[in-house]
């Protein structure tokens, strides 16, 4: 446990899940690992909120789930992006970028 890790801000988990899944189908544990990896261990996914988020996204129809066998021959539930999920990802990504840029702007100029 290092101090450099930060918890995810509210509402960004969905975006990150979608982004990870854009690279290909993945199961829940792998998703949380990938987020941690890609963010160089800075972002830490609250595992307690990961699964409710997955189920919520599935219900909204942005991702779909199927059971498949993993490399070491275990059954796991894989999530994949749907067509509407792709669109949603684009929309959220651009939204996030705008937000981040705007926040950065404010921070730099003041």
């Amino acid at each position, binding site marked *: 446990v290092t101090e450099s890790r930060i918890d995810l801000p509210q509402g960004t988990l969905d975006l990150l899940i979608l982004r990870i899944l854009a690279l290909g189908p993945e199961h829940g544990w792998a998703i949380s*690992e990938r987020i941690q990896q890609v963010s160089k261990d800075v972002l830490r996914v609250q595992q307690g909120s990961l699964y409710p988020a997955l189920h919520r996204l599935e219900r909204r129809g942005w991702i779909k789930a199927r059971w498949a066998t993993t490399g070491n021959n275990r059954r796991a539930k894989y999530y994949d992006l749907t067509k509407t999920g792709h669109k949603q990802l684009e929309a959220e990504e651009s939204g996030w970028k705008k937000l981040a840029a705007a926040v950065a702007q404010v921070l730099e100029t003041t």
Partner: protein
Amino acid sequence: MLSDLLIRLRSLFRRKAVETELEDELRFHLDCQIEKHLRAGFSAAEARRRARLELGGFEQMKEECRDARGVILVETTLQDFRYGLRQLRRSPAFTLVAVLTLGIGIGANTAVFSVLNCVLFEPLPYPKAGELVELRQIAPGAAGLASFSDGLRLSPSMYFTYARQNRAFQSLGVWATGTASVTGLATPEQVRYVLVSEGVLEALNVPPAIGRWLSRADQVPQGPKTVMLSYGYWQRRFGGDRSVIGRNITVDSRLREIVGVMPQGFHLVDADFDLIVPIAFDRSKLILAGFGYQGIARLRPGITIAQADADLARMVPIWMRSWSNGPGTNPLFYETWKITPALRPLKRAVIGNIGNVLWVLMGTIGVVMLIACANVANLLLVRVDSRRQEIAIRAALGAGRGRIVKELLLQSVLLGLAGGALGVGLAYEGLRLLVAMGPAGLPRLTEITLDGRALGVAVLLSLLSSLLFGLIPAFKYAGPRISESLRSVGRAATASAERLHLRNLLVVAQVAMALILLVSAGLMVRTFQALRSVEPGFIDAPHLETFRISIPASLVATPQQVTRTQNDIADKLAQVPGVTSVGFASSMPMEGMAPAWDTIEARGQAHPGEVTPLRLFENVSPQFFHTTGTRIIAGREFTWSDVYGTRPVVMVSENLARELWGAPSAALGKSIREFSSMPWHEVIGVVQDVRENGVQEKAPAIVYWPTMMEDLYGPHTFDAVRTVTFAVRSSRTGTEKFLNQIRDAVWSVNSSLPLATVQTMQEIYARSLSRTSFTLVVLGIAGAMALALGIIGIYGVISYAVSQRTHEIGIRVALGAHSGHLLGMVIGQGLKLTLIGVGLGIAGALGLMQSLSSLLFGVTPTDPLTFTGVAILLALVALSACYVPARRAMRVDPIVALRNE
């Protein structure tokens, strides 16, 4: 959106599969995490511990996933439902008491509502019943008439004028009830009939079941003699044989052809009958007088009652000018009566004044329901209180406040629905019982059923009451401070005041409502007592057998022969073993026969221009007053020689004697007459006042004529009363053998004479008290229920308070408190609640009892005796309810109590 629905549905219907998947998914995650930690070099146990910790609460996460899937509402409701059922099953005593309490409450309310609905709200069973009116008129100028609640009835001449000249009605007719003997079918039989003029059946507009209505031709004196049957009579006498149409029956010795049968359930206004007989007025013989018929009419569409009243008012002078009371009479005499039409909807006429009673009932039963709810709420509070720990733990485990409220409410709704189901069953049986008992004075009895509206009310009541008693504990214990109750669990020193506060309130409310009900029941008891203590004008009613005998002209022709026959019957009856006295009269007191009345003139007291009051007329036989036990105040009764000699003699009631001549003894030897062509009749006797119209009503001024007199239409023609009620005084009344002997005695004189309406005077008397006794019984039951529920409430609260304070009491005992002091403390607490409740109840009752005043007699709505008595009764009962828990408090062992911690 489709995926949304599919997932919701799948989650709902494939619940097991979805749950397993969720379980598998999380377990897979856990395994991956453990492997990761193992790879990082942790020991197996440590890896498992870390993984668990990182994942967080397994169950809570599952719950959140379910939530995310959007099945929460239905899913958890089902879960709570099952949980609630399990909870209820686990405490059968509580469930039984709660369901029974609610069931009785809902049942009583549903039943009373059914009665109210069917009697007051449902339209009468005629097509477009809203157009039907009772042709009622009042005559404020005819003093003495006021005591007859149904106003001035119509005379046949009025009917003709109204029927011909009106502009407001589609059809209009008059009718009357009576009894007749039907002979020629097995044994002679006395039947009830209604006489109807043309226009009555047309107004009601109910087609016959078979055959046809009475036609206009049947209403002509010389026309064909016809009759219609009621459905019941048709079934009873002819087995429902459709070929009866065209057959003849002998009604009062006259052959009549059956032309039709009315359908099942048809009543003529409020009359139950066997036959419908056409009236066939002879127009040429009609006079102004003879106000003996009830009128009924159907308004033209769009005509209001006020317009119809105006139309009738227009015709009253026309009627006076068109007819006369015979030569030498003043046709404008009736102007002094101020005859005023006062039509009312037919429904009002049918319902009468029962609406008052029913509303009081509904209110009373509603209050019982509130008390029942308060009780169940109290029970629930105790239960929920004992589950505080469990609820707190569930809250700590992640159950939301809403979820807990919902679970508690669901349990209440389950109770409510179970109670409702029981209630509907009880109401159904209760109504069947009510209809079977057929309390006198309850109109439209046969129409009373448990219909959809009543079922709706039952369901509504179940739900509303569940909310009422369910919300109280739900909000109390699912409040924001759940964690506090978890902390306080097991550390109960003294019962927290706040927790008891609500339950105290409920008890106070219960006591107050119970007091109100008991006061109303108490007032009815006092009313009943007052009525019972009224001297009715006859004695020992249970040993007075009465029955009616009608002697038609076709059977016995002359008035003298009629009198002879009646005299013979009286003599034969007197020979029946056990009979001590026999008499007969035109009607018995309170029998409810259509009254005869007119003005009389007292010799030497002519007050020209002044309106003379109407007097009730009765015809009585010799020995009649001796038989009924009516005291002769002065003079003597009629003798047979008075009757046969048609001597001009008369008797009067005490109040009439006092009014006319100042004193009963002063009346003897004075003379009166009905109209100027009548000879003066000498008063030979004065009798005690008789409550002719029921115990509640003032005794009217009565003139008693002999049963055979000179006829109205001139000297030397005679008339005898052909339909009379016999009264037989005997200790053997009511036994079958006695009744057979009575019948044989009558038939030994004339075997064609049926006995009608055989009943003891007690039955007549009881019927006149029926409204009061009906109200009394229902209020008594409601009061008893309220009292019982109130006791349970007080007992429950006090004994719970004691159990909560066991620890405190233990400390007190350890510190040396006397057991007497403890007793006082507990009882004092209960008494305080009771007294507050009694105070509030008295205040409420003082306000509410005014609505009861129309049902009371001889007692004021604020009767201090009743109020004090009920208050003391309630206080005593509350005291005894507190005593048991108080005794328990006294026996508290300090060691045990303190170790209880």
